[in-house]
């Protein structure tokens, strides 16, 4: 796995941890430990995406993130269901 793939992998892991905390907090809204973890992971996600952006350009996840100077890059491949998109991600 190269550095770019490592950073993408880290963002995916943080996204998953945040989703898990989201579900857990839906049924355990007063759990202080989970709330602190959520803060930590959200901050880590923000920082990792900033690092990724500085090194490799935009980490595109929604149309809203696409810069106005390159609106067409939204339709650039590979798309998430194609192998090229996932290559090296789960090694």
């Amino acid at each position, binding site marked *: 796995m190269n550095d770019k793939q490592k950073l993408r992998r880290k963002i995916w892991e943080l996204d998953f941890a945040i989703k898990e905390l989201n579900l857990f907090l839906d049924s355990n809204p007063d759990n202080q430990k989970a709330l602190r973890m959520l803060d930590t992971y959200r901050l880590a996600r923000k920082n990792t995406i900033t690092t990724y952006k500085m090194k490799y350009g935009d980490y595109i996840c*929604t*149309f809203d993130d696409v810069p106005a100077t390159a609106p*067409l890059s*939204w*339709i*650039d*491949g590979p*798309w*998430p*269901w194609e192998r090229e998109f996932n290559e090296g991600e789960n090694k």
Partner: protein
Amino acid sequence: MWQYEKKLQYPINIKNPNPKYAQIIISQYGGPDGELGASMRYLTQRYSMPYNDVKGMLTDIGTEELAHLEMICAMVYQLTKNLSYEEIIKSGFDKYFVDHTAGVYPIAASSTPWRAEYIAAKGDIIADLHEDLAAEQKARVTYDNLLRLIDDPDILDPLKFLREREIVHYQRFGEMLKKTTDRLDSKNFYACNPSFDKNCPKGFIK
């Protein structure tokens, strides 16, 4: 993947419950030309599409359709709130009520549950885009029919918004069909299937 936004695409605020209207509007959730089928149709067709712009459009419109089925469900929910047994029986809502109470279940106005037969993924870009164009027109007609039968501005306003979206989607799919045929052999569009054949032009023209 998807993220949920905790809002509707267009507000639904119906003051007067009306189970009669709920029973016809529910068709745009689980009926043959409803929003659930629309979303599944486009999100399913994406995988075999050969061109990035068509993949993008099916992703974006398929996602918008999810927001539309949420609007339709919100309408059905508000129209069936706080009903008396008398209203339930008088409006004919009793046949739905006995199986689903006031839960929102995907069925057509004529009571058939949602079926995968309502959608198609032919694996051929020209056939699939024509399916999409026809689907948008059929959904538009369904909204037109609802607009003929319903007399409540709280319902007509969001229905008109949704009807307009069908026309916009039809327009966008039409443009994609034109861009697609422009990439194919102008003497015979059907010489090969770019969704499957390797010898077809795969080039993406920006």
